[in-house]
């Protein structure tokens, strides 16, 4: 990406970005545009450069924050009505690390409300449109981030990935998206979806850009007790074995779009030419990952959304005569239908009498899935897999049928259950011009190796 220097001013980079944002309004990408503040910061950076003072590693680079990141005085609405009118009083660790490197936030982008969805249709602000076909979905939940990068509104964007929310929209829009190792990046100041699965990651146009962003943001944060000790900078550059696995069940799934399948097969062939050994993996437990995920995730969602009660901040229903109606109406009016489904399911699997049969059982299934990945990584460096069974689907095609929407995540959620890093990368285009994508999945803490391997694949 272009960094501001003596020849390229930060102001010109920001103006270019703001112009693109204006030109692409119809895609409904941004929930908030921060022109004035962005230009003001750009001017400051240019003056620094003129005076020959040192500037950050992302000097003048325009970027977008997914709207579930808190950043001071910007709305952190998570595209949810219940969080409208919430000017954030503080910074998420990630936003702070990026701005400390002189990156310039030009605005906040759309998502499925509270990141509940795989299409960005569940947004209070309406859907974001696919970058290649406006009749199709952007993917989700980080649809705004993916399209903002794909349409050159910004050089990079932040995202969150709980079950595929970075990788699937990245693949739907032909950009690179990294879902780091769980705990590699700090979750502090990012609206929680499902805390044991949530990871903060990035969208960019090249693997090298992702590498730089990880250098900057993959840091131990004392504000997040689940964040890992620093490892990214010191981790090895490449994998040892030159062995890559493919998951038999995924490749042979009749749900897998034929064009994605053939694109993957070409990639496999080229990998063999490059001297990689391809190993077919039997991973029979993975087919239960989605069921386990749709127990654990809604449970944590229901818990994490308990704080949105209209008492202390943001939206409070006007039609409340007493405390009980204040709670019920604020939440009833403030949450989107998909939010409500997940809250209800979450409270179902946690409620007395069902906990053991659902939540506990899912937690045990999670152990089996982790074991299956560990066994796989005995044999291979990493795994090549489709990101999702199909390219971008039509707007409205799945939004009314939750289970078919959930099936979008079938190939992405195992990674989150096991806390693994995964990198989504473009895999060419379909005949109809839609972006195709795949993901590379590695063992915990292999984020850097994944990025370098994808560089090698191109």
């Amino acid at each position, binding site marked *: 990406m272009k960094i501001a220097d003596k020849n390229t001013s930060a102001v010109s980079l920001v103006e270019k970005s703001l112009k693109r944002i204006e030109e692409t309004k119809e895609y409904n990408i941004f929930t908030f545009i921060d022109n004035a503040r962005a230009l003001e910061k750009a001017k400051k950076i240019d003056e620094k450069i003129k005076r020959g003072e040192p500037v950050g590693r992302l000097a003048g680079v325009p970027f977008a924050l997914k709207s*579930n*990141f*808190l950043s001071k005085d910007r709305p*952190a609405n*998570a595209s949810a009505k219940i*969080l409208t009118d*919430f000017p954030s*009083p*503080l910074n*998420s660790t990630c936003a702070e690390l990026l701005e400390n490197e002189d990156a310039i936030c030009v605005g906040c982008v759309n998502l499925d409300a509270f990141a509940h969805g795989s299409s960005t249709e569940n947004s209070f602000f309406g859907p974001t449109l696919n970058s290649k076909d406006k009749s199709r979905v952007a993917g989700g939940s980080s649809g705004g981030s993916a399209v903002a990068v794909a349409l050159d509104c910004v050089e990079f964007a932040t995202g969150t990935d709980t079950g595929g929310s970075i990788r699937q929209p990245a693949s739907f829009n032909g950009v690179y998206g990294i879902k780091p190792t769980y705990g590699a990046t700090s*979750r*502090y*100041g*990012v*609206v*929680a979806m*499902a*805390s*044991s699965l949530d990871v903060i990651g990035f969208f960019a146009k090249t693997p090298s850009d992702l590498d730089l962003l990880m250098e900057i943001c993959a840091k131990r944060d*004392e*504000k*997040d*007790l*689940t964040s890992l000790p620093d490892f990214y900078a010191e981790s090895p550059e490449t994998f040892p074995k030159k062995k890559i696995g493919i998951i038999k069940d995924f490749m042979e799934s009749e749900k897998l779009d034929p064009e994605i399948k053939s694109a993957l097969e070409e990639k496999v062939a080229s990998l063999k030419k490059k001297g990689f050994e391809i190993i077919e993996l039997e991973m029979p437990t993975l087919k239960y990952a989605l069921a386990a995920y749709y127990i654990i995730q809604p*449970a*944590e969602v*229901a*818990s994490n*959304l*308990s*704080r*949105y*009660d209209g*008492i*202390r*901040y943001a939206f409070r229903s006007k039609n409340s005569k007493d*405390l009980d109606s204040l*709670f019920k109406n604020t939440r009833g009016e403030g949450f989107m239908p998909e939010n409500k489904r997940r809250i209800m399911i979450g*409270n179902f699997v*946690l*409620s*007395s009498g069902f*906990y053991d049969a659902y*939540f506990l059982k899912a*937690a045990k299934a999670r152990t089996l899935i982790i074991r299956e990945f560990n066994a796989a990584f005995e044999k291979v460096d990493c795994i090549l897999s489709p990101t999702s069974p199909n390219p971008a689907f039509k707007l409205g095609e799945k939004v009314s049928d939750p289970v078919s929407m959930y099936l979008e995540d079938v190939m992405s959620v195992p990674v989150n259950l096991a806390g693994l890093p995964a990198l989504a990368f473009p895999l060419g285009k379909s005949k109809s011009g839609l972006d195709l994508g795949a993901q590379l999945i590695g063992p915990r803490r292999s984020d850097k190796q994944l990025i370098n391997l994808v560089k090698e694949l191109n």
Partner: protein
Amino acid sequence: MTEKTEYEITIGIETHVQLKTKTKLFSEVDNDARGKEPNSCVSPIDYALPGMLPRLNGEAVKIAVRAGTAMNCKINPRSRFDRKHYFYPDSPKGYQITQFYSPIIGAGFITLPSGKKVRIEHAHLEGDAGKLSHFDDYSLVDLNRVDTPLIEIVSMPDIKSAAEARDYCKELWRIMTYADVTEGDLYNGNMRFDVNISLAPKGSKTLGTRAEIKNLNSFRSIERAVEYEYSRQKKLLDAGEKVIQETRGWSDATGKTTSQRSKEEAQDYRYMPEPDLPPLNLSEDFVKTEAKKCPALPADYREQFKTSVPAETLEVILDYPELARRLAEVESAASSGNAVEYTANLFASVLLAEENQSLLNDNLPSAAQLKELSEMKSKNELSSTAAKEVFLKLFETKHVNKSARELAKELNLIQENDSAALEKIVDKVLENPATKSAQADFKAGKEKVLGFLVGQVMKESRGKANPSAVQEILRKKLA
């Protein structure tokens, strides 16, 4: 009409103890909000802004280990936190972070002064809730108390009477204050007791339906509430009615418990493992090190002073850790035997007497001062009144650096015991014509005039003579 059944009362008690940490359980904010403005000790974490994550206070973990040790409890090396969900304005997150599935403190027991053991089922770490105040048509929320560290101590239903309930709570309060777990300020809610009471016919194998009286915070009200609840439930059962399982509140004013929330519509808390906090896995060394930091407990002092101090005196003193500790210092300082008992008496009957209790806030005499004072008393260098006077004066800051003797001298209270000197004074009095008739009366057998003569000698000695010594000399001389 059947004859009245005899009932047996069974009591189990849940105790919330606020830990004396500098900061809250999950945020680096001042934990002591006493006298501070509403919501002045509230971080974005306590306020439960979106994206906020709990930051566990390691000191709370250490204190919990100490508390468990003080109750003879097993410390579970592996424990973790869970979320307990309920909606209420005093609970910003919509859940309380507690330890439901695997608490840090396992089974143990405490021993009451009576010698009775009450078993502890378990105890766990959790965060406190905020405070609501109610007005005519609205309520106000103050979140200062949110996530003040607590341990909740759950007893087994071993308690069998109102008095025993009081003793248990009082002993638990003593243990927690001696172990330096809590400030122990009951008035400010540092310890709160939920008492579960049920009645069953004597000898019956099964327990009756229990009612829970929540949020008691004085030993007196605990005893009264249990007594009231006993008679209330007895009346119901005698009348063939049912006791409903419910939460009841106690009013000191009315001396009654009243129904609050019936457990029929009991809440489903949907406990879930807390994903934002890594689990605890405490090493043996860690537990040992923290256990060692536990100061001497009431039981230790009972053992130490078993022979030297009468039990009832000691129990009075044990309400004040600083007095028990000072008494122990006196014992290690003292050579002679009765210094401890004498000091104990000064504490129990002089210092803790209504009129002197205020002195507890002043500076407590040092072990050296107390030792010397009791020695002077036993050598009759001080009359008991004089000794008390010196004792009380020693609390004054201006005397801190004086020895007991220096102060006694300064106050001119040291008794004249030197018999030669005393005889001179006696002779002087006897030579005084004004006493002649009294002398004659005494010789004639009028015993009571001796008092008058002693008085004269005391006057002559300006109060410093030892009266019993004076009497002896007078008898000798008038024999």
